[in-house]
């Protein structure tokens, strides 16, 4: 049975409109117009237990709304949804005990108290006995090095420390399904890597099913094989990451480091130049022309080093959403 099964899932928000300025506010006291905003138009996908899947899309694409429907926070206005065998919006105790949703900009830790107090509360809420609670604290401590932070009031923690604590707290009850919304937002590179390593281990060792959204392409490249691309509330692509690149970007990037400077006109003979600084040049080369173009470059330019790579994922995504590749 799939961990998640969504069929034609839809969510329309009713948003009230208000006129500009004081006159608009005054008018809004008496009449208020509303309009419907289709955040998710129709989304169908399924996720098997143990998968690690990324939701990609620009702001307002419907990624977070979809995750919120999966968590049961939002009531879908259309379609059917089953997560871990439950209809999420019913908020059955059994369902709530089996998943966790971490939002990068939200916190469940009690601001004024040390994080350990919220852990104790969650242990009580999720019915963890003392032995299991102790074991989980030790495990999470080993993975995320939380020891020096337990007794510091949450408001005194740095963003990175707080994010580690939030993640640990959300995982205290060993959820089968983890929904992560922008987990690395605002974190420095060291903390980003710590979190990515942690999520990888969680998926590999505990077989936790993980769905994440992120604008950080390193998160996606490091963590996920499968990606679901959402735009304007519909799914544009659902498949493996390499297939996404091959399908939407019919070119690779050839980069050459030269032994001596060459003028730009010499460089432009080999294709669309993406980067040029005299001693280093990069071209976008159609996949079918790679071998002949590489051969030409090696024969006609003083090449010290040459690499052929997929286009950077950020460029791929930018191209998909900006240039209408889809």
């Amino acid at each position, binding site marked *: 049975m799939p961990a998640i099964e969504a069929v034609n899932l839809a969510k329309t928000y009713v948003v009230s409109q208000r006129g500009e300025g004081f006159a608009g506010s005054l008018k809004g006291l008496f009449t208020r117009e509303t309009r419907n905003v289709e955040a998710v138009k129709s989304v169908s996908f399924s996720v098997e237990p143990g998968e690690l899947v990324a939701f990609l899309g620009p702001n307002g694409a419907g990624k977070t709304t979809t995750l*919120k429907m999966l968590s049961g*926070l*939002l009531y879908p206005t259309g379609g059917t949804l089953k997560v871990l065998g439950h209809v999420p919006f019913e908020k059955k105790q059994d369902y709530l005990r089996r998943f966790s949703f971490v*939002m990068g900009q939200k916190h*469940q830790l009690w601001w004024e108290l040390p994080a350990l107090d919220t852990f104790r509360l969650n242990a009580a*809420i999720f*019915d963890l006995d003392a032995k299991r609670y102790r074991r989980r604290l030790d495990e999470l401590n080993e993975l995320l090095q939380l020891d020096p932070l337990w007794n510091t*009031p949450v408001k005194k923690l740095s963003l990175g420390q707080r994010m580690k604590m939030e993640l640990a707290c959300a995982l205290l009850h060993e959820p089968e399904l983890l929904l992560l919304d922008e987990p690395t937002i605002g974190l420095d590179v060291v903390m980003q890597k710590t979190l990515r390593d942690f999520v990888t281990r969680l998926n590999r060792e505990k077989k936790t099913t993980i769905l994440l959204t992120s604008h950080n392409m390193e998160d996606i490249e490091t963590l996920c094989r499968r990606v679901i691309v959402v735009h304007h509330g519909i799914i544009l692509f659902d498949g493996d990451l390499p297939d996404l690149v091959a399908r939407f970007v019919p070119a690779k990037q050839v980069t050459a480091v030269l032994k001596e400077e060459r003028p730009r006109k010499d460089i432009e003979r080999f294709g669309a130049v993406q980067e040029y600084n005299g001693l280093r040049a990069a071209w976008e080369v159609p996949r079918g022309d790679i071998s002949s173009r590489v051969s030409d470059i090696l024969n006609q330019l003083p090449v010290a080093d040459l690499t052929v790579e997929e286009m950077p994922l950020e460029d791929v995504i930018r191209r998909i959403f900006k240039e209408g590749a889809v």
Partner: protein
Amino acid sequence: MRKYLTLFIMSWQKQLEVRSDFIFERGRSLAVLFSLYYLWSSLLTNRADVAGYSRSEMLTYVVMMTLLRAWVLSNVTDRIPSEIAQGKLSDLLLRPISHFGYWATQDAASKSLAIGSVCIEMSLFVFFIRPPLLPPTSVAAAGAFAFSTLLAMAMYFQMSYMLGVIGFWTAQSWGPRFCFEVFLEFSAGAYFPVDLLPGAAQKVLAWLPFPYLVFHPLSIYLGKAGPDQWLSILGHQVMWIGVLTLASRGLWGAGLRRYAAEGG
């Protein structure tokens, strides 16, 4: 049960961390007590009674009313609308704990601190001011008063919880709540006994739940409501708890469907 006990203790911890709110609330309570006590004290200095209330009865009403303000008319549910508007409600909805139970526990924790504090304040007030306090008219009246006060606490919680849940429909809930609380305190008898009001106003209030929060329990205490009326008072309180429970549950269910879980 363990989760609510842990939550109760944490709520205490939090309130002790955020002391200023607590101190200001206690200050407000003392200000109301002193102003009403001395107002009625001077009004009744040269008069035998006002609308059937002797000086001792009225001053007992004022002192007991201060206790009931802390026991009944205190709540923490005014935070619910902002939690809905800012999407903080999401944290709670994602965990296997009842929202109603969560706030009822927080409310109980807040009340228990307020009760402890008001008992100390009242002891000092009685010690230094020596008001002419009357005891309940009988042991049975004391029991009926205690039971009625408990029902009033449940009633007021349901009422304020329902008002909090209206936050699903309007983010600007401070205005409606302020108006509601002013009207509520007035019509509950939290400034003076409502039977001092004109007959027409009393007839209107009889159809509302508010007098059952302070006025009727104190009527039992002072013997203004005899044993033959106790059952009616307690029955009305139970009825209002039922009505308010159904209304708040209905609003909660409808509100959840509108909830946008904003801010994340």
